[in-house]
């Protein structure tokens, strides 16, 4: 197990990377802010523990411009972190959409939040499969 001091250093580094789209830290931060969630909520949705989010945050953001690369990156990350790859893919796409919309709308936050929540609400249907449809 990692000593507490190491975890403190790693979490501080993650906070510094939240503005850098190269890292998953930025995806997590965008998602957390847009949906007004905390780490516990995100970890629960992904089916992993909160500590695993630190590992996730240091991963490179999946390549978004190619569906094949995107899926293979997401699966590799989910496998490494130990989380649900379908949920992870959905989270990344939602964060990406929110970030894109924000650029175009200049951040009409309530509308974005509503759109993001509607999208997230789809996943709450127990009849729907967990993993992302292809």
């Amino acid at each position, binding site marked *: 197990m990692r000593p507490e001091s190491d975890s403190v250093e790693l979490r501080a580094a993650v906070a510094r990377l939240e503005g850098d789209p190269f890292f998953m830290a930025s995806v997590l931060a965008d998602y957390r802010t847009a949906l007004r969630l905390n780490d516990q909520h995100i970890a629960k949705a992904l089916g992993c523990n909160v500590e695993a989010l630190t590992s996730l945050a240091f991963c490179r953001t999946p390549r978004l411009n190619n569906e094949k690369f995107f899926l293979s990156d997401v699966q*590799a990350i989910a496998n490494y972190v130990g989380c649900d790859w379908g949920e992870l893919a959905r989270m990344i796409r939602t964060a990406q959409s929110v970030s894109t919309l924000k650029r175009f709308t200049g951040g009409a936050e309530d509308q974005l939040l509503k759109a993001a929540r509607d999208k997230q609400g789809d996943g709450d249907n127990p009849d729907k499969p967990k993993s992302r449809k292809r």
Partner: protein
Amino acid sequence: MASFPDKGWCVEAHGRLVGGNPTASAELCKAILPPLVGWLRAKGRTTNKELIRDAATDALVDYIKHPDKWNLKKGTLVSYICMAADRDLLNALEREQRLRRREVLIADVEDEGFDRNVLPENEALTDAIDGLLSALERQVTSATDRRFLTLILKGERSTDEFAEVLGIQNLSKQEKARTVKQHKDRLKKIIERLRNRLNAPGK
């Protein structure tokens, strides 16, 4: 203190990073960041935890984004990242010290025209202070005055420190305070004169 990963592990992780594996960056950060922070702390350049963390993170991130900058033949990955982090830390410390000197300089000349809150953004102000510092270096030639001025720019407030520079430690408390004040006033006048000259039209 956490220990650095061995050379073989680093070479393999580097290979995964170059090969586009999206988790290689996480493996490297988790394995290298904690010992790197510990190494920088042990080096003792500063006790500022935030500066140390930022330097370690920035050096590691720079390598992760540009892994081709590291040449395996020139040294280990750990030594490459350590050197980069140490260099980043030195630069950050230099920037911080420079900023502090400027703030002290402004405070000491008590110039109402300078707003300390806009210091980092105001390029004209930065240029003005750079000019003032260079002019001061040319103007103040006495070794004692230079040491005295250095204490002022460091923000030193202890009369005893200034008294030591002047070699008047043995005087009474009041005498020391009076003599130190005289020297301070004299040097402040030099600063003000230089500032006025630099601010004069056509300068």
